[in-house]
């Protein structure tokens, strides 16, 4: 109990620090959003129109920095992220909600898949270390993880989309379709997600395989594994219930963190495959000095990662009694 309370307390403190940094960092950038907008459309925009835009954007506030900060904290608590400047007058919440489900779907599911597959392969590779699987699969996937994502993505497009024409090369669904929860649409979405997901998988699975394999190898040297073997338990039972259960614990925190970072989007995926998502949106927000959108996205990433770490810590505490008795 004390453990849980301590963890939650630490979480709140880190959250507050992140929120404060999140407030000040964008304001340290040069320029102001109304000017950025004026520059984007260099036409006969009159000084009065510019002034009116600045007022609408809230750039010309009389409030000092401290007042703005207090307002900001209050808004965060109520979930009011304001109006986007790049997508003016759209609200930030709506802008993010348009893209976030795609990011969560593609990147989230692929991360989970990569983790499951990677740990699975790592377990078997460690169990049969030195064998054929172990000699081939981990090295191959470690190499593929080192290849830049965009190259893998473009190669897949070239082979599977252009030459073989098995899969589409862009977008989340065929642009002439209307989104809806019907089988035809869902199949279309899966079809469009296949190549980006495959590219993501190829480039991220290597880490999971390697770390799992290495922790497994250490665990397999433990006495209780030897004891289980001596007792005559079937190999599969020892591999999973004894060794893997203990070996997976370090990976859990890593997995939780990468799940947290999923909401940061995968900017290269979105660029190469023209896939909707929050990664490219964040890039645009930064380059256009869209403070509200930037802040909301940074906040989303920070909170997601912090929550994920908190949950990972709690999960580790539940799964591994040794960490509970530390105090």
């Amino acid at each position, binding site marked *: 109990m004390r453990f849980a309370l301590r963890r939650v307390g630490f979480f709140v403190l880190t959250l507050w620090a992140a929120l404060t940094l999140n407030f000040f960092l964008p304001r340290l950038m*040069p*320029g*102001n959003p109304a*000017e*950025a*907008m*004026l*520059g*984007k*459309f*260099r*036409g*006969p*925009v*009159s000084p*009065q*129109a*510019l*002034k*009116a*835009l600045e007022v*609408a954007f809230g750039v010309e506030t009389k409030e000092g920095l401290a007042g703005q900060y207090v307002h900001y904290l209050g808004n965060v608590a109520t979930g009011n992220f304001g*109006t986007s400047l*790049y*997508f003016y*007058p*759209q609200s930030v919440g709506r*802008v993010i909600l*348009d*893209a976030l489900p795609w990011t969560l779907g593609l990147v989230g599911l692929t991360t989970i898949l990569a983790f*499951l*597959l990677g740990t*699975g392969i790592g*377990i078997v590779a460690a169990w049969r270390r030195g064998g054929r699987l172990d000699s081939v699969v981990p090295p191959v996937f470690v190499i593929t993880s080192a290849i830049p994502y965009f190259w893998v993505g473009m190669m897949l497009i070239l082979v599977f989309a252009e030459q073989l024409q*098995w*899969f*589409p090369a*862009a*977008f*989340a669904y*065929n*642009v*002439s379709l*209307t989104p809806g929860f019907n089988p035809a649409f869902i*199949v*279309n979405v*899966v*079809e*469009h997600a*296949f190549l980006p997901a495959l590219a993501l998988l190829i480039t991220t699975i290597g880490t999971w395989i390697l770390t799992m394999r290495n922790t497994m190898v250490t665990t397999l040297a433990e006495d209780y594994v030897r004891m289980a073997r001596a007792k005559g338990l079937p190999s599969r039972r020892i591999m999973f219930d004894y060794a893997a259960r203990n070996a997976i614990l370090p990976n859990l925190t890593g997995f939780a963190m990468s799940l947290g970072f999923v909401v940061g989007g995968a900017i290269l995926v*979105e*660029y*190469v495959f*023209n896939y*909707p998502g929050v990664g*490219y*949106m964040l890039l*645009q927000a930064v*380059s*256009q000095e869209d403070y509200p959108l930037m802040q909301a996205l940074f906040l989303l990433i920070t909170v997601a990662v912090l929550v994920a770490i908190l949950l990972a810590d709690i999960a580790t505490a539940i799964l591994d009694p040794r960490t509970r008795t530390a105090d």
Partner: protein
Amino acid sequence: MRRIKILVVLFAACLLAAACGGGSSGGGGSSASGGNTTLTISNESGALWTCNFNPFNLSYIFLSLGTVYEPLAFVNTLQNAKATPWLASSWAYGNGNKTLTFTMRNGVKWSDGKPMTAADVVFTFNLLKKYKALDINSVWSVLSGVTQNGNQVVMTFKKPAVNYFYYIADQVAIVPQHIWSTISDPVKYPDLHPVGTGPYTVSPCTPQNITYKANPHYWQPGKPKIKTVNYPAFTSNDTANTYLANGQAQWGGQFIPSIQKYYVSKSPDNHYWFPPVANVSIFPNLTNPILKDPAVRQAMSYAINKQRVSQIGEYGYEPASNQSGVVTPTFSAWMDQSQATQYGNNYAYNPSKAISILKADGYTKGSDGIMQKNGQKLSFTILNNGGYSDWVASVNVIQSDLKAVGIQVTPKNLAYPAWSSAVLNGQFQLAYYSETGGPTPYYELRQWLYSGNSAKIGQPAGSNFERYSNPQTDALINSYGNTTDPAKQHQIVNELSLVMLKDVPVIPVTESVSWYQYNTSSFNGWVTQSNPYADPAPYYYPDWGQLLLHLSPT
């Protein structure tokens, strides 16, 4: 482990089956009754659509003006500002060009079935007066009143401003009073389901694609012939260019490198044309003590091989500019040839002349190869947008050309906001930038030379970033608006070109073009070089509406 393996294999198999059986992806919707009536546009917008269509918001006007909303008249940049009736059937200036009366067309309906009248026009303009942030073309800087007189709209001006006809008649979307009068804050109004008089309505709009459908109430019978237009949201140029190359999109607004190899050769029906409309120029900061000297600027203009900049930097797509500032061949009719000849054929490439001008001004080449006078070197930084790879390449060519005559420039490639902010605020020595121009050379010349467009150093200027100020030039610029007589207008443009040739306040290098690719296999009626009835870029408003109205299935 085996269970997981089997699951994965099964999953992949299902996907493959779905993919193979799931039909083709790609935008063609052929109707059985002959001819494809669905067109897809490829224009990289860089972000998902927010589905806002407010025509007074600079971010979204290009999505609705011309297709959903219509203006009073159509002014064609490519045909010397030829004006044709659109929502107004005719118009006339009166009272010494201080009154402009539009006669409205009969029988026009809004897409919700209600009739459009002159009252809607009056309402639209008074809306712009009430909410300054909506007046993106500053029409109320010259208007004094807009009133209704039966089926006519009478506009009165503070003083004659004939050059504002383009902004008033071509660039203002007419919106329905019965909807917009109920909006409490039109500046923030997203206009998700726009109701206009135009040939298309939006149905539906998703973050990935806008589908325009033909408006059943449209006032031109039988039009538009293209029933569906898809406008996908491309975030990357690669995908947009691929769609054009393999025919999934038929109308493009893209910069395609090596266009012969990557687009034209893919199909005999792939064509392109890049009509020049304005200039990309070097803006010298005229408050800089060295750049104040016109001789230095003249030398720079002679020293730059603009043809080579165009070839190397822009793949030859953007023709070389000339110092008069008149864009050719689009506005060749405005060029004063005798004046051009007098000034070295509009400052044609002549590095030896550049050196002699500098020497005559008292400059001598130092031991480091850089010209200097009284201990002051001709060494400057030039600000550029690092994200525009073609501009970066162009400035590199400029750098080497200027080095050959002893002028050292160091490019500083900045990210967009820093670059834009520095240029607008006058915090640069040299800057590479462009103005937007307009339907005659006057508009760009005014953007460059009118002191009212400029601002003090440290304040953002709308244009005239070099901070040029000359009262006689201002008076000349203001006089253009007084007359509708083309001869007088040509005279004024000649005199403004003379300012460009004598003072060299800005150095145009290449001519910025409208990016345009089109595929003739499914559709006829495209804008071509021999038939430039509108500016053909799909992002150019309201011209893209005109183009869509001219298209028909083959």
